[in-house]
């Protein structure tokens, strides 16, 4: 087995230029899905019959089907459907196919991440004792204040490890964006490999870059965890002193 190190280095440099796209995919998706997932988690906790049924259905669907299939489905549905909408409903000559395909990637990954994150947030909100909300309201805070000042900071600590895991798996899933002709790390390295059929080298390069990115993401989350859980270290002493 021979591995061309020269080619690997060249591919590495080419694939590095795909890192911004991968990171953009990951973080824009997270930005879109976090608020939506939060409200979805609240909706599920409200015990409203219809909303929690609909949300449950959606979450079960997304978690029960492969993301590849979701990508293929939405990538074949959305452009044509939007085109139809613009042509026949709005009667405008707007060309949907000129859009950057990354928009579809954002859509699919967001749909997926919202479902996963909503479960993360739901379980995190459940870890906060109901008495916390009551206590906050009893000292005159509004519900909004109670959530932003008391509930969310505590729930976030519980949620953070899971948010980290979600981010890592999202980062890994973005490697499938090449199916939507988005030029991320995987796509660039594959194109490079196709010229001389050096697939092994190209995939080894991709692997190294993903391990690198994943390490960085995990370090960031570990740091955030340390910062956010500061309050916990003080509180945990209290039950012991009784």
């Amino acid at each position, binding site marked *: 087995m021979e591995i061309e190190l020269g080619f690997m280095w060249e591919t590495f440099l080419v694939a590095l230029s795909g890192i911004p796209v991968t990171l953009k995919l990951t973080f824009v998706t997270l930005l879109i899905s976090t608020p939506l997932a939060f409200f979805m988690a609240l909706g599920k906790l409200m015990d409203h019959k219809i909303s929690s049924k609909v949300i449950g259905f959606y979450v079960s669907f997304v978690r029960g089907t492969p993301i590849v299939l979701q990508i293929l489905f939405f990538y074949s549905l959305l452009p044509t459907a939007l085109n139809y909408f613009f042509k026949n409903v709005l009667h405008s000559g707007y060309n949907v196919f000129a859009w950057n395909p990354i928009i579809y990637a954002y859509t699919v990954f967001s749909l997926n991440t919202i479902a996963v994150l909503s479960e993360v947030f739901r379980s995190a909100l459940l870890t906060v004792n109901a008495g916390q909300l009551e206590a906050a309201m009893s000292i005159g805070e509004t519900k909004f204040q109670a959530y932003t000042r008391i509930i969310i900071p505590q729930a976030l600590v519980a949620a953070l*490890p899971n948010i980290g895991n979600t981010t890592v798996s999202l980062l890994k899933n973005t490697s499938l964006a090449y199916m939507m002709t988005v030029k991320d790390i995987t796509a660039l390295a594959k194109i490079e490999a196709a010229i001389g059929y050096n697939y092994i080298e190209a995939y080894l390069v991709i692997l190294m870059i993903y391990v690198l990115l994943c390490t960085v993401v995990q370090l960031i989350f570990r740091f955030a965890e340390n910062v956010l859980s500061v309050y916990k270290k003080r509180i945990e002493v209290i039950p012991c002193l009784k």
Partner: protein
Amino acid sequence: MRPFKPSFIFEVLPQIIPYTLVTLGIMLGTVLFGSLLGLLLAAGKLKGGKVLCGLANGYTYFIRCVPSIVMLFIIYYGLPELLLSFGININNAGKAVFVITTFTLMFSASMSEVFRSSYLAIDPGQSEAGLSIGLSRWQTFRRIIFPQASAVALPNFTNALVNLMKEGTLAYTIGLIDIMGKGQLIIGLNHGSYALETYIAMFIIYWVLTLVIEALSKRLEKHLLRGLKPHAEAVKASKVSKEGIRFREPVLRNPLISGESEESVVLRKVKQTSGFLRISVRDQRSAKMESFFSKD
């Protein structure tokens, strides 16, 4: 635009359903080999020395960071070449071999965590108690540790299994004809038309498979946890009498736990609170000691 034809979904479903067996076969092979490798990794993490433990942890970390599709292609293109340099030719091997190899590597990493966490969840006092009443080591494991550990492991195992099934769809990229592969073939035969209907048919199959796996797992879990019922009631009763003790929901650290059912959450809480009661008593004692010494 060609109108959407829902009836095609039902035309295409019977064509794809037989290939569920291929998907399940791949899953079975992967679970067998992956669990074995995962067991070895977990043993390395729990009982191995510094080197073995480090290696096992490093492997798990590494696999966690690798997208399945990248791993699949590295195995598909790389493994034959690697083995050829040792004089073994597997270029004619079926695609299933490469798929199972890839997902064994991926699955073993998550299985090792499942095994490790379930082993650690069982109080060492359990095996001590078993040994103290005259059971042999093997009997203690088979009758005391294993039934409890398997109940703890089951929700995580189910999650890993469903993930495996979902990731396994990527096998179509190297040309394996499973559910996904057959669907893609059908779309190809229709020259790309009826793609949406075929995708929906595949959605249905995968979704049903997931739901069935989860339902079976829930049933099995109930069966495995049948011994805990009296214990759960006892804890409930003690909760009323000992008002001072706080029950904390544990932070879900394990990536695999996050998708567990509500029932298992309750039962896990029961298990952990029983441990917590003990710990809190000890902590109270040590806290009293501390305050006793710090007063001087």
